[in-house]
């Protein structure tokens, strides 16, 4: 029999603010944190909104990481470390806890660094006749040493892992994954298996990333994931939706074996399934009390998605997408934090802005809905098509493994 694994701590740095409480408050108030896009590197009249980390939250996150390590980091990595520290605090742990063997499982977003911004100044300086001369660009970098010497580290897909392990002085099992839903699922699977096998005693799972870059956003526009029609509102599962809006941020969970946690209610991970094709995703046999599913903000896609949602027999359906935007690195981790909040509070937050649902399903609208909640399903579909389902249950009892 596999040992039950529970969420012992959570942390996040999201457009909704620093910390789980900020996210939970925004979700319950149905308050979107998506704002006017603010960057000095590009301008647009068509892509105008973004789920952006506020400067005060970035500065707060920087306090969680030594200055000498920040030179290796993208902003997203700094948020990731801060989210990990929050999750460890809630779990009552530090990275160097005597007698506790840690595992670290990280997930970064797909197109984050080196971004166009990393090279923008150099490219601009090498422009001749309206286009960058790439041989001159090469010379500036190789001969004049004009490139940030730490760019290779900032560009590493395991930069989050390397910096987090150094920040926490954490020696142990580790894995670094790429990309949204698939990466989150792989990290959670590996962490859960390591806990169940007894190789580790505490698992840190963290995702961090940003798509705030010309090339990244143009890829998302081209794929139809975000809209390029000047829209500043993201409305998942709403007939008035006119497309997606990207976001950025970080989220972290600490998992432990249920038996190692004190008595009292805990949110436990029951099962995880995946498929590259949503319609073939294996779903639980029993109806679920609450379903957390991001949606897309595109009514046509959301209506299609609803065919799968209907199969779950959920009593309540909610989404956090409108709060923070479409996240590249931690979509499932953020939804798991929302789901855990609902189970702990016995209350389902509304879908922000939802007025005209795309389907006749039990979407929560307007105000938080108190309910008796024991089982929760998180269902994610990535913008490149990959899908996953996570089952959670809430229990005061220690299961007999």
């Amino acid at each position, binding site marked *: 029999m596999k040992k039950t694994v529970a969420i012992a701590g959570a942390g996040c740095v999201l457009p909704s603010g620093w910390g789980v409480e900020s996210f939970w408050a925004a979700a319950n108030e149905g308050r979107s944190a998506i704002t006017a896009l603010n960057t000095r590197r590009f301008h*647009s009249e*068509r892509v105008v909104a973004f789920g952006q980390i506020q400067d005060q939250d970035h500065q707060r996150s920087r306090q969680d990481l030594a200055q000498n390590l920040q030179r290796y980091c993208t902003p997203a990595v700094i948020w990731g470390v801060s989210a990990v520290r929050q999750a460890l605090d809630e779990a009552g742990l530090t990275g160097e806890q005597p007698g506790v063997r840690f595992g670290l499982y990280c997930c970064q977003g797909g197109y984050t660094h080196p971004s*166009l911004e990393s090279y923008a100044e150099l490219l601009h300086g090498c422009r001749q006749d309206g286009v960058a001369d790439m041989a001159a660009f090469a010379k500036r970098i190789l001969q004049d040493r004009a490139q940030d010497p730490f760019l*290779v580290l900032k560009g*590493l897909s395991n930069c989050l892992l390397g910096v987090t*392990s150094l920040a926490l002085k954490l020696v142990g099992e580790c894995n670094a*994954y*790429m990309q949204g839903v698939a990466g989150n699922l792989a990290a959670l699977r590996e962490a859960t298996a390591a806990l169940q096998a007894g190789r580790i005693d505490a698992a840190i799972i963290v995702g961090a990333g940003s798509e705030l870059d010309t090339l990244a956003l143009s890829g998302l526009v081209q794929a139809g994931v975000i809209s390029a029609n000047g829209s500043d509102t993201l409305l998942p599962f709403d007939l008035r939706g006119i497309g997606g809006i990207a976001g950025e941020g970080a989220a972290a969970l600490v998992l432990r074996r249920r038996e190692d946690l004190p008595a009292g209610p805990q949110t436990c991970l029951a099962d995880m399934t995946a498929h*590259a094709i949503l319609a073939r995703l294996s779903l639980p046999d029993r109806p679920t009390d609450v379903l957390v599913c991001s949606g897309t903000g595109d009514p046509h896609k959301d209506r299609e998605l609803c065919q799968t949602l209907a199969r779950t027999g959920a009593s309540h359906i909610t989404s956090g997408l409108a709060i923070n935007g479409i996240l590249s690195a931690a979509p499932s981790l953020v939804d798991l934090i929302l789901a855990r909040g609902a189970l702990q509070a016995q209350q389902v937050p509304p879908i922000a802005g939802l007025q005209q649902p795309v389907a006749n399903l039990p979407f929560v609208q307007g105000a938080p809905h108190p309910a008796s909640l024991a089982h929760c399903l998180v269902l994610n579909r990535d913008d*490149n098509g990959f899908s996953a389902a996570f089952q959670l249950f809430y229990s005061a009892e220690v299961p007999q493994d």
Partner: protein
Amino acid sequence: MQAREVLVTGYGLVAPTALDAASLFTTISKKRSCIRQHPAFVELGFANPAAGFVDEQQWQVIAAAFPGDLQTTSRQEWLAHYVACQALAHAGLADGAFARIASGIFVGANKHCVSGDLRDASRYMDDQGRVDLDQYLDNHTLSGGAFARRVDQQTRHLAEWLGVRDHISTHSDACAAGTMAIGSAYRAIARGEIDLALCGAVELMAHELSYYSFDGLGALCQRVDFSPQEQSRPFMPDRCGFVLSEGAALLVLESREHAERRQARPLGRVLGYANLCEAEKITSSSRDGSKYAACMAAALTDAGLASAAVDHVNVHGTSTQANDRCEALGLAQVFGETIEQMTFTANKSAVGHSLAGSGAIEAVLSLMSIQLGVALPTLNFQPEKSQFPELKFLCEPLQQPINVVLSNSFGFGGVNSSLVLGRA
């Protein structure tokens, strides 16, 4: 619970100058290097254009075998498909086999580079260097599809093509990613979650942006007095950095039960695996080699083997001063006096450093060494000048019975991994 045995029943490979595993094994056996002058680097005026790269002739073959639309798919998808077809054929599996049972895809890959896109974007910069995103969107379509620059596209392609419904992961553990993808697949089979896995790495980073970044850190060989073929010289005193390379290798792993049910021919076994983040420094390990040693020792413990059981080590051996020294010291700690009975090989001397690709390529070469009873030579190695004479690297291929190989991959970010491979 008793861990299940994990067999290797097939593999596929593409490396610079080689379109399959047998060709690469022969190339290295004949002491030929895969490293050449990269034409793109020559065109850009690099003082040292040496690299291992998949050339246009190879790409023509790879693209011709891809069943999808080449305009809307990425090169990493074509390469993954080509190598996966080899691996499946080698294992005697139809592509429908993965959809019928619990299975997984585990692919290492780190970055895909975008210098063409950078150049295009520079056309839409204003006087302050700000890009007009709207103009860029109106005039520019990302080649290879909207997600072509995402690192997980080859994984998604394989998962969709093969109908994998269980484990699907893209491992991005820098230079350790290929080995860690194989290790994760091994563990998932050993603990009974899946019966069949396709695992390894697809890495396309022989690219100017990767070159700039690693060069900025001083990690690349810049000795232009050495020919391209001479630049990767692991464990020699005059080593001075690695040579950037690329490539892909995928292995089919199966539970013994599954392999026996379908009467598959086992090619080898994964006996053990360990990974360790060391929290030492972001680009280098402990100077005394102890962190590398801890990882190797953990892999041997996982395999249930004493160090004396290892016949041969496929080292990480990047040809940088710091890494090779740490690895040599770590090997000495793990193997003690038995080190003199063992042989060692550093495949990067011939192939260069293909980052995630290297661990997967080296796993395939290690399995071939076990199957063929041949230890591969290390190019540019001169025993009389060796800084670590206790490590018996070979100048010529050596016929020897090989039952157990330890294969190391250590990555930037402080991520280490070791794999123990054995006879079936």
